[in-house]
């Protein structure tokens, strides 16, 4: 088990009801973790419409999750 920090933005923030949380998880990758959290919180966005950031840089859904990581699941962007 490891503990990671998750920050939520935009639609995910509203659906989760918080801007950030710490989660202790057995998930091995950001992809596995999102699958678990999506079920738990009924996030409407499927993983293939998101990107993931690990420690403030774009990362891979298959990366190995490490204790202390900060994750952001990035909804489709809409700047400008």
């Amino acid at each position, binding site marked *: 088990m490891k503990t990671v920090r998750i920050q939520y933005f935009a639609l995910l923030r509203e659906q989760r009801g918080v801007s950030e949380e710490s989660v202790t998880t057995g998930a091995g990758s950001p992809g596995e973790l999102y699958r678990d959290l999506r079920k738990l919180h009924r996030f409407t966005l499927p993983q293939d419409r998101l990107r993931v*950031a690990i420690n403030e840089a774009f990362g891979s859904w298959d990366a190995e999750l490490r204790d202390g990581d900060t994750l952001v699941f990035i*909804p489709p962007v*809409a700047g400008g």
Partner: protein
Amino acid sequence: MSFTLTDTPLDPAALMRGLADVRAGACVSFEGRVRNHSEGSRVDALDYEAYGPLARTEGERILAEARERFAILGAACVHRTGHLVPGDLAVWVGVCSAHRGPAFEACRYIIDETKARVPIWKKEHYAGGATEWINCATRGPHAPGAGP
């Protein structure tokens, strides 16, 4: 070269002065403004939200790419966050170069890439009280693949 997020109103004249260069013969700017309508619905207001650290990193990367690809002297991009109403300036891009071709091309590149890649989100508030996070629908007319 700088990418900036700010929660206060943008001043295009001051931003352009920041790019002043006597070698520059051409400066092109893009102003993205809040429209009063979106796909047929009246828009009363918008909220912009950004993931600051990554938005800045990705924005600076886009400006560096523009500098590599086009013969420009300077470029900047500033994006608003917070609550905006129709007519407000949401994003400003400015590029200066010796000749006009690269300034036009780099300005277009920067705004296109910013809209596609920088983690900034927009929530529209419509007449009547409905809201929507743009590009985030998973059913209904705005979902990907929906409609004709």
